[in-house]
């Protein structure tokens, strides 16, 4: 069952949104930020497939450009979380004892701040912007990866092959890199996919409340915020960006689940 339909659909959707984001760098049907007041609030048509908003901006072009914002914020944020969290978790597991205890206590504290609350704090201090969203989501992701890396590393440290490496004279740092890291790799990738989808959702949420990408950068969350008052007369301004988020997140989740299942038989065979 390594080729489950979920995995294929997930990979397909993810690829689709990645291509959409890349394509928007080169071409969108209209300039996503250009006002065209006479053409405002048009229903979907051959010219404007997804219609236009209250300033006459093309919704399709904004959905495409919004994909770019969402995906890049999420990638950088998850990458940041991984880059901080995984080494941190590996270190805590390798050090053990009191160091491990304090490291986990620290991650508990970060964990107690939901990403959004962290973003609120940062925005209160620095003002809104995509960078703050990246930092807030990234910092929140770090303990997720730290816990994952530490937990699976701890169980690996009890395994005999690690003991064998110590008998072979290898130090803790070297064992972490040579034996532990490759063995937690697939778990980190699976978790990364899940966190990526949460990142897309978080970016949309932050932009929606005005803590994300600042105008005029196109963003799915802000499109929805702006559509809220006009949803009654122009439902397409609310439906298409929302669907984009749903499909993008759905794709990433299916991809993550599919990868987990695909990796799993091997995981079981090893035990």
């Amino acid at each position, binding site marked *: 069952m390594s080729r489950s339909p979920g995995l294929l659909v997930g990979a397909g959707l993810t690829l689709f949104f990645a291509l959409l984001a890349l394509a928007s760098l080169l071409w969108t049907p209209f300039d996503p930020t250009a006002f065209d007041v006479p053409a405002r609030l048009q229903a979907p048509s051959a010219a404007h497939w997804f219609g236009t908003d209250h300033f006459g901006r093309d919704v399709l072009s904004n959905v495409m450009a919004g994909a770019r914002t969402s995906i890049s914020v999420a990638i950088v944020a998850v990458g940041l979380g991984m880059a901080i969290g995984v080494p941190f978790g590996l270190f805590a597991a390798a050090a053990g004892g009191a160091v491990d205890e304090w490291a986990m206590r620290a991650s508990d504290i970060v964990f107690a701040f939901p990403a959004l609350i962290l973003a609120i704090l940062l925005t209160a201090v620095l003002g809104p912007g995509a960078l703050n969203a990246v930092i807030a989501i990234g910092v929140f992701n770090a303990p997720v990866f730290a816990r994952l890396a530490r937990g699976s590393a701890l169980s690996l440290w009890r395994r005999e092959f690690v003991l064998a490496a110590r008998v072979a004279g290898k130090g803790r740092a070297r064992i972490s890199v040579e034996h532990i890291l490759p063995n937690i790799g697939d778990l980190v990738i699976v978790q990364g996919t899940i966190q990526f989808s949460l990142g897309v959702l978080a970016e949309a949420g932050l932009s929606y409340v005005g803590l994300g990408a600042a105008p005029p950068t196109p963003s799915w969350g802000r499109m*929805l915020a702006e559509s809220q008052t006009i949803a009654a007369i122009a439902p397409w301004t609310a439906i298409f960006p929302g669907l984009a988020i749903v499909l993008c997140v759905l794709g990433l989740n299916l991809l993550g689940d599919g990868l987990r299942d695909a990796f799993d038989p091997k995981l079981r065979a090893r035990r």
Partner: protein
Amino acid sequence: MTRAGAIASYAGRRFLSLALTLLAASVVIFVLLQIAPGDPAAYMMGLNADPRALEALRAELGLAGPPVERYLNWIGGVLRGDFGVSYTYRAPVSSLIAERLAVSGPLALLALALAVGVGLPLGAVAAARRGGPLDALIMAATQIGLAVPNFWFAILLVFVFSIVLGWASAGGFPGWDAGVLPALRSLLLPALVLALPQAAILARVMRSALIDAQGRQYMLTARAKGLSESEALRRHAFRNALIPALTIIGLQFSFLVAGGVIIENVFYLPGLGRLVFQAITQRDLIVVQGVVLVLVLIVVTVNFLVDIAYAVVDPRLRRPA
């Protein structure tokens, strides 16, 4: 040691850890808001502030003196229930928070109850009907539930209820003075929105935990005693599956609180979320500081309660660590 005694000693240890976490969180909040950006008074009054007014505000905010002293003053006040005075509302922050908590608290609890009440049974049904069409349906529904951003779902709901169905109030809050029922009714939609992704997660966790439990040898023992499959599931697998489900409830609660902050804005509910956003736009840092601390307190307290629930469900945790 008696069962209750063992749980109490476990709770004591967890409580220490809770206090430590809160203490550290308060330092982080204080450092971020009061020290990092420079002069909060100048920040709060904007660019063209009158120097004398600034001086007055500094004094009022207790910004004179070294940071350690200021922190101790603030935290000392907080411990006595004094969060300072709001600069824009000209009211004690504690009373502002108390007033808003009366909306945010019940909202979060209602959402949690909905998520648990819907998520766990759905997961159990899916596990019992594993591989069947009902399982596939529930799992597909949870995938959608996970992917729908709750503020979008909220917008759609408001649209459908207030505009298509013509229900008068799909937003706003009448206040508890208007009676419990109307107040609860106005919280129901927001709670439903908040509960959706949590219920989806819980259903998935419950299903996989039950399926995991079904593969354990104690289930074979139970069947060999003569229990039917569903009896064995109910009597043996369920309690074991509750352990991972509890973990997730604890972890997800912070998302629920954060989601609440956003959803209050969609439904125009006068809760902590609205308070904190207004405070940010008005640069009222004292309020931001207080609200964030309370939000963290809520999250940490719920995790503490989950830890206690853990010890009740799982006897293996009651041993001294």
